């Protein structure tokens, strides 16, 4: 190759360099993998907790109440909840920051001609940004709806929890009684399934686990299965409210 062509990295000026300045991409990916794993465990536990609604109003409300008074007096009232909130918020900020950083670096490194002709097998991978944004919007709505009960996100009949009793069951039924809310919830859960399907695979690889080709297929299937279990477990709840199973 006789024509001297400058490398992207040696250009004094020009487009911003993919890997220069700021957090190295390797660490950004490790941060995304660890914070993503925290979210994956959280949504699984959250889903299992949600399923307690099928044990009846009393059981569900007492579970909601327990979350507030858990480990009292070692932890103050709502201590566990606040620890979870702070950790999850920190993870969320780090996850979103790294996602934006990596997406930008990827776009710069790829350049003007986008990769075309990608198949459905990478659909989840390609839509990580879209599903991520939907999930972010959903998280905001979900907190306004069922944690704060702030109108118009929350139901009109919202009853805030007190130190003695929680009204989670009634709030949930009132919220999902509004079909647009139930529909948004189902869409968000579909996005969660897709996000987890690729996220699990990506996290395992980014954490440095050398996955052989055959195991990689199994891992991809495992990621999809995990996403579907979490999403479908949750989706049964608005469906049960809309069909009148839960009242």
């Amino acid at each position, binding site marked *: *190759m006789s024509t001297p062509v400058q490398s*992207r990295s040696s250009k004094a000026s020009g487009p911003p360099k993919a890997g220069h300045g700021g957090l190295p991409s*390797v660490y950004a990916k490790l941060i995304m993998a660890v914070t993503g794993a925290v979210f994956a465990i959280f949504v699984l536990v959250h889903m299992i907790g949600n399923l307690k609604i099928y044990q009846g109003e009393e059981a569900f409300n007492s579970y909601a109440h327990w979350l507030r008074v858990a480990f009292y007096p070692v932890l103050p009232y709502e201590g566990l909840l606040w620890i979870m909130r702070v950790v999850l918020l920190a993870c969320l900020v780090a996850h979103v920051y790294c996602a934006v950083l*990596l997406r930008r670096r990827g776009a710069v*490194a790829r*350049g003007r001609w986008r990769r075309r002709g990608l198949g459905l097998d990478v659909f989840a*991978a390609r839509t990580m940004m879209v599903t991520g944004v939907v999930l972010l919007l959903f998280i905001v709505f979900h907190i306004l709806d069922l944690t704060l009960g702030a109108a118009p996100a929350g139901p009109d009949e919202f009853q805030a929890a007190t130190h003695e009793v929680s009204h989670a069951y009634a709030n949930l039924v009132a919220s999902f009684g509004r079909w647009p809310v139930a529909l948004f919830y189902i869409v968000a859960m579909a996005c969660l399934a897709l996000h987890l399907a690729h996220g699990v695979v990506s996290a395992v690889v980014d954490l440095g686990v*050398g996955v052989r080709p055959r195991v990689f297929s199994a891992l991809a299937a495992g990621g999809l299965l995990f996403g579907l279990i979490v999403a479908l477990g949750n989706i049964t709840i608005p469906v049960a409210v809309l069909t009148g199973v839960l009242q």
Partner: protein
Amino acid sequence: MKLTIEVWRQENAEAEGRFVTYRVDDAAPEMSLPELLDRLNDQLVSAGEEPIAFDTDCREGICGTCGITVDDVPHGKVPNTPTCRQHLRSYDDGDHLKLEPFRSASFPVIRDLMVDRSALDRVIASGGYVSVDAGTAPDADTRQIPFQVAEAGLDFSACIGCGACVAACPNGASHLFSGALLSHLTALPQGRPERARRARGVVSTTEEEFGPCSVYGECVEVCPAGIPISAISAVNREAARAAVRRRRDD
């Protein structure tokens, strides 16, 4: 067989490129893609036009010199096969082919279908080697290496450096290349004394020259050397290991 071929024509690195459509009426199923381009170039030269510039060398899939994007897929439609081993028997009479260079900001176009892949060389130069003094060969059994370990090292060393993994990646990442480099050199004892230093160099140059990996897995679909997907995780693993080793070389 008659083929319609859309080819990317670009004068030089600075010029704006464009697709030009040609017809080849006497293509044959047994022709490879470089042979098709040779045929087309004969036509162009006879007509007094500039021939299409493209990289080609061994034409038997071992050198890694050739590499073009065919209908949006690096190397062409047959998976894990270099451009020179892609044949027209995968196409039908009257088909339309779109030939363009490997697409990545890290691979600037030199002319037509030729790109500058020296970014890959810079990754190798930043640590992807073993510094050993040449001397007499050691006795055969002084260091016993299990067959599977040797085979794994050989699997990763099969990379021919064609750059298709970068061109296939929506992020323009070279993790399959860089990971194969790190994996094969750490598989065997000769590469161990410089393991951490190598990882620091290779990973930082990889990040300067290429994009981040998002585990799309597109690279392994096109890799003509069949580098396994386990290579890509070696980049993060070796980087994390090197960070823990602090300033040590091994």
